[in-house]
C-alpha cells in the first residue's frame, strides 16, 4: 500500500489523516506533541482537569471534534501515530526522526507537510533577557501547564494572538499590566473591514475580546526598550500613538507580530518559495490544492496563515489532491466546496495581515547595540557592518555575520535581519533573498546524526 507521511497533527494534519484513512489508506502521522491537537488546540497532559470550554473558549466545540476524530482513528487502528518526534531531515523518501528512539527513520511515497506556524518576532532592545517570551509561549504555558510566565506581564506586538492571549491570561487570574499593539488604529480598521466582510462573526468575537482588555490595550504604540536587571525584565519603555513616553513595570514580556509559517521541511523537500508582500515573509509556492512538487503537499499555517479553520480545510484539500494523484477516487463536489471556503478564509486572513503588519520601521530604527540574534548575541550594528563586506544575499550575510547560525536556525531573527539588510542596501526583501534551511532542521542529539552517518 502507498505510504503517505503526514508531518504535524494540528488541525491540518488531523483532517488530512482522516481523509486518507477514509479512502482506505493507512497514513503515518509524525507529531512533535505528545497528544494530537497542534498548538491552538493543544491538549494538556492526561492528569489535567480543566474542561474544554475553559481551555478553548468559543472554539471548544471545534477542538473537541478534532481531538475526537483523531482519537477514533487511533482506536480503530487506521493510522500509524508517532508522537514526541521531530522530523529533522528528509532524503529520497526517508524521513529522519529525532525522538524517544535513536536513529529512527520512516519511509514514505508521498509527503503531506502540516507543520504549522510560530510567532513572528521582531527584536526589541533587551529582548535577550530571561523572562522575555513569545506570545505563543505565554499561551502554551497557560493552556498546557496552567501557569503564568511571570507575576506582572506586558504583552506587546500585533495580531489576533495578542488580544486572545491577553484575554485568556486575565480570565485565568494573571496580572497583565499592558497590552501594546504597534499597529495604528486606522490600519487596524482598514484591515478589519476586510476581515468583517469575509467573516463577520469571527471579527466581532475578536472585538469583544479586545473590549475586555479595557485601558490596558493601546494601539499605535512604538516599543523603545525592555529595561532589564539580573533577574530579567524590570519595565517596558514605550511611546503612545501621540508620541508620549511611558514606562510600564513588569517582570515578564511576551512578544509577537502575528505568525510566521514554519517552512524548513518544505524547503528541504524541494518546494519553491516566493516573497509575499501581504504576509511579509517567504512562503512556499503551491497550486490551489497544496501541491508543491511531485508527491509533496502542503497544508495549514505552514503554507498560508489562515488560522485553525482554514487549516482544517487545507488539510482535507491537500489529502484529496494526494488521493487524486494516486488515482484513487475522491469527492469532487466536497473538494470544490472546501476550495470555495478556503478562498473566503484567505480573504479574511489577508485582512488580518494588513490590519496587524510587521513593524518594519521599528526594526529599521533599532539602535546598533540591540541584540538581533538571541542565540548568539549578534547585534544590529554587527549586521549593518557585515553587509558592505558580504553583499546583500541573506545566506552570505549569515555565513559572514553569523546571523541565523544559532540554535533556532534563524527562525526568530531572519525576518529582522532581512529588514536590516534591505535598510542598509536599499534593496527589497525579495531581492535580499531567503535564508535556506539546512538539515537537521532542529538541532538533533549527536547520536541521531551519527547513526545516519554510519549507514550512508
Amino acid at each position, binding site marked *: 500500500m502507498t505510504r503517505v507521511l503526514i508531518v504535524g497533527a494540528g488541525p491540518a494534519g488531523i483532517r488530512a489523516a482522516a481523509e486518507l484513512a477514509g479512502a482506505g489508506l493507512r497514513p503515518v502521522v509524525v507529531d512533535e506533541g505528545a497528544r494530537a491537537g497542534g498548538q491552538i488546540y493543544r491538549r494538556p497532559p492526561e492528569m489535567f*482537569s480543566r474542561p474544554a470550554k475553559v481551555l478553548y473558549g468559543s472554539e471548544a466545540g471545534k477542538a473537541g471534534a478534532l481531538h475526537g476524530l483523531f482519537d477514533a482513528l487511533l482506536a480503530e487502528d487506521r493510522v500509524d501515530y508517532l508522537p514526541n518526534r521531530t522530523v529533522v531531515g528528509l532524503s529520497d523518501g526517508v524521513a529522519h526522526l529525532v525522538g524517544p528512539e535513536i536513529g529512527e527513520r520512516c519511509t514514505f511515497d508521498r509527503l503531506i507537510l502540516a507543520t504549522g506556524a510560530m510567532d513572528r518576532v521582531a527584536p526589541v532592545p533587551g529582548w535577550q533577557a530571561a*523572562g522575555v517570551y513569545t506570545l505563543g509561549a505565554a499561551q502554551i504555558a497557560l493552556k498546557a501547564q496552567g*501557569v503564568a510566565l*511571570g507575576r506582572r506581564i506586558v504583552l506587546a506586538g500585533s495580531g489576533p494572538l495578542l488580544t486572545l492571549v491577553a484575554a485568556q491570561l486575565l480570565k485565568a487570574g*494573571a496580572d497583565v499590566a499592558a497590552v501594546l499593539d504597534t499597529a495604528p488604529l486606522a490600519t487596524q480598521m482598514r484591515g478589519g473591514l476586510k476581515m468583517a466582510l469575509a467573516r463577520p462573526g469571527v471579527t466581532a468575537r475578536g472585538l469583544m475580546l479586545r473590549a475586555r482588555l479595557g485601558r490596558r490595550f493601546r494601539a499605535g504604540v512604538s516599543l523603545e526598550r525592555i529595561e532589564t536587571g539580573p533577574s530579567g525584565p524590570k519595565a517596558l519603555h514605550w511611546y503612545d500613538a501621540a508620541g508620549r513616553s511611558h514606562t510600564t513595570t513588569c517582570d515578564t514580556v511576551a512578544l509577537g507580530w502575528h505568525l510566521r509559517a514554519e517552512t524548513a521541511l518544505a524547503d528541504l523537500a524541494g518546494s519553491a518559495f516566493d516573497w509575499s508582500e501581504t504576509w511579509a515573509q517567504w512562503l512556499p509556492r503551491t497550486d490551489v490544492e497544496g501541491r508543491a512538487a511531485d508527491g509533496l503537499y502542503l497544508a495549514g499555517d505552514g503554507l498560508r496563515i489562515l488560522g485553525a479553520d482554514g487549516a482544517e480545510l487545507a488539510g482535507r484539500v491537500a489529502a484529496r489532491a494526494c488521493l487524486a494523484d494516486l488515482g484513487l477516487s475522491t469527492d469532487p463536489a466536497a473538494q470544490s466546496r472546501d476550495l470555495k471556503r478556503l478562498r473566503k478564509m484567505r480573504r479574511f486572513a489577508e485582512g488580518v495581515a494588513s490590519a496587524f503588519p510587521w513593524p518594519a520601521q521599528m526594526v529599521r530604527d533599532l539602535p546598533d547595540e540591540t541584540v538581533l540574534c*538571541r542565540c548568539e548575541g549578534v547585534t544590529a550594528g554587527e549586521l549593518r557592518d557585515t553587509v558592505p563586506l558580504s553583499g546583500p544575499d541573506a545566506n552570505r550575510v549569515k555565513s559572514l555575520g553569523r546571523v541565523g547560525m544559532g540554535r533556532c536556525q534563524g*527562525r526568530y531573527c531572519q525576518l529582522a535581519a532581512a529588514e536590516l539588510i534591505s535598510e542598509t542596501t536599499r534593496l527589497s526583501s525579495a531581492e535580499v533573498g531567503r535564508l535556506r534551511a539546512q538539515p537537521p532542521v*532542529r538541532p538533533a542529539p549527536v547520536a541521531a546524526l551519527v547513526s545516519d552517518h554510519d549507514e550512508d
Partner: protein
Amino acid sequence: MSRVNAAGEKGRLIRLAESDRAPLPFYLDGVERQAMQGDTVLTAVLLSAGGLRSAEFGLEKRAGFCLMGACQDCWMWQEDGPRIRACSTPLKAGMRLLTDPPKTWPGELP
C-alpha cells in the same frame, strides 16, 4: 504564591490552575524540589528558579522563549544522561537537573 528557593531566588512562573495534581520530587543542582505530575521540566524548574541555565553569550540566564520546541533556548543538563529540551520534556520523579554543564560534559551546545 511567592516561593523563594534556597538561594533566596524567587521562581519566575506562578501556577494559576491545575494545582491539585500529585506531587513529584526532583533535584535542581543537587537540591530537592517539589513539582507536580504533568509538569514539564521547564515548568518545574522555573517555578522555583529564575533560569534554566547560564547563557553562552553575555551574562543573561536562559529561561526558554517559545515553549514549542522551535528556539532551542531551553536546553538543560542532567547529572547523568543526555541533555534535554526543558519545554517539551515531561518531568520524571527523581530527575537530577543541572543549570551548569556537568564537569564531564564534552561537547558544545547545538
